[in-house]
């Protein structure tokens, strides 16, 4: 019976590790424990509950918009002949949103406040995070310039850089499952 018990324990543990949960800026869940941990973070004072909900919503929408543009671009990069108009409009959308990304993560908008994939590490290593956000902003601007110029070889190279800047930050600071 030990074997059976062990197997049951393992399978239960495995199951509980696998709950998909979409990111939602869920202010209703913020509760009273909000912002307690953030007191230790050496950045500006945490934003209030309502402000946090607003920013987290904007962040979610913005990231989704960037993602949609990336997907549209991915298709154009794969296609035999790319549609420059689509590439340019998507590049502009991303370049437009990229500078805002830095303002999407003020203290008080972490996983302790609401449902988010943003990891607490963002506020534990603010300089490193800011540097990665800046890399993304630069990559988005460079890609937008390449799109405007219209040389496909350049566009594809800059698109590759842009993708890497997304991944660099997401690998470190985005959780697989929302807390």
């Amino acid at each position, binding site marked *: 019976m030990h074997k059976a018990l062990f197997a049951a324990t393992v399978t239960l543990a495995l*199951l509980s590790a696998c709950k998909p949960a979409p990111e939602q800026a869920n202010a209703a869940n913020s509760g009273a424990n909000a912002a307690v941990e953030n007191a230790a973070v050496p950045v500006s004072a945490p934003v209030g509950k309502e402000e946090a909900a607003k920013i987290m919503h904007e962040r979610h929408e913005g990231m989704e918009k960037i993602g949609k543009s*990336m*997907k549209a671009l991915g*298709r154009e990069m794969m296609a035999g002949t790319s549609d420059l108009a689509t590439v340019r409009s998507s590049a502009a959308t991303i370049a437009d949103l990229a500078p805002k990304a830095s303002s999407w993560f003020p203290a008080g908008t972490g996983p302790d406040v609401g449902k988010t994939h943003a990891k607490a590490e963002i506020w534990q290593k603010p300089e490193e995070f800011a540097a990665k956000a800046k890399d993304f902003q630069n990559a988005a601007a460079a890609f937008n310039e390449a799109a405007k110029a219209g040389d496909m070889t350049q566009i594809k190279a800059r698109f590759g850089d842009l*993708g890497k800047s997304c991944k660099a930050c997401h690998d470190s600071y985005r959780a*697989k499952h929302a807390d």
Partner: protein
Amino acid sequence: MTATAPSMPTDTKQRVWDLPTRLIHWLLVALIAFSWWSAENGEIDWHIWSGISVLTLLVFRLLWGIFGSSTARFAVFVRGPRAVRAYLRDPGGWRSAGHTPLGALSVVALLGLTAIQVALGLVSVDEDGLNEGPLAGLVSVDAADTARGLHGIFFNVLLAFIILHVAAILYYRLFERKRLIGPMITGRAELNPDAEPMRPVKWWVAILCLLVALAFSRWIVAGAPPFGT
């Protein structure tokens, strides 16, 4: 993989599972585990190749279920509801080598669910638009996003059936005194003397099935129909 099973006087065990069937089984175990790990750890390149490998195994298993040894053939082991009921009433009355009528349902369910999971993965795009399944270009971006969501949710269904499968093996071991894991490793099991033995096929049939499965996967990797859109 020899054509005949020589009767060994010292060993009363007979062949039940041929080598391809066993290899497919354990490779699927390894690849499904690896797919899970790679998805959880953001190793999406590895995850996609793992999925393509699962696809290849599934195609091979389908072909092997038509042209392979008797105990691997769907037409031989998949039985109707009446046979399943008869087996449930009297498990001891079942005497053939290979899957029982109830076990057959498990085989079909696990292979079918794995196939659905692979199909969803093939048309998925990741959250950031950085990686996508080889057939994602055949559907809209929204459909590919939806497919990714379903791919994540549906894994739990597959996992539930895997757990049921393992639980059934434990049940047989503990309450029926039947060892099922050993034969899936060695290919041999103690059978009733009057049991119908496994009928093997020539080894090159497996090679042909494998070549077709590899060609099919290569076609999918290329983006399918006339190689993408």
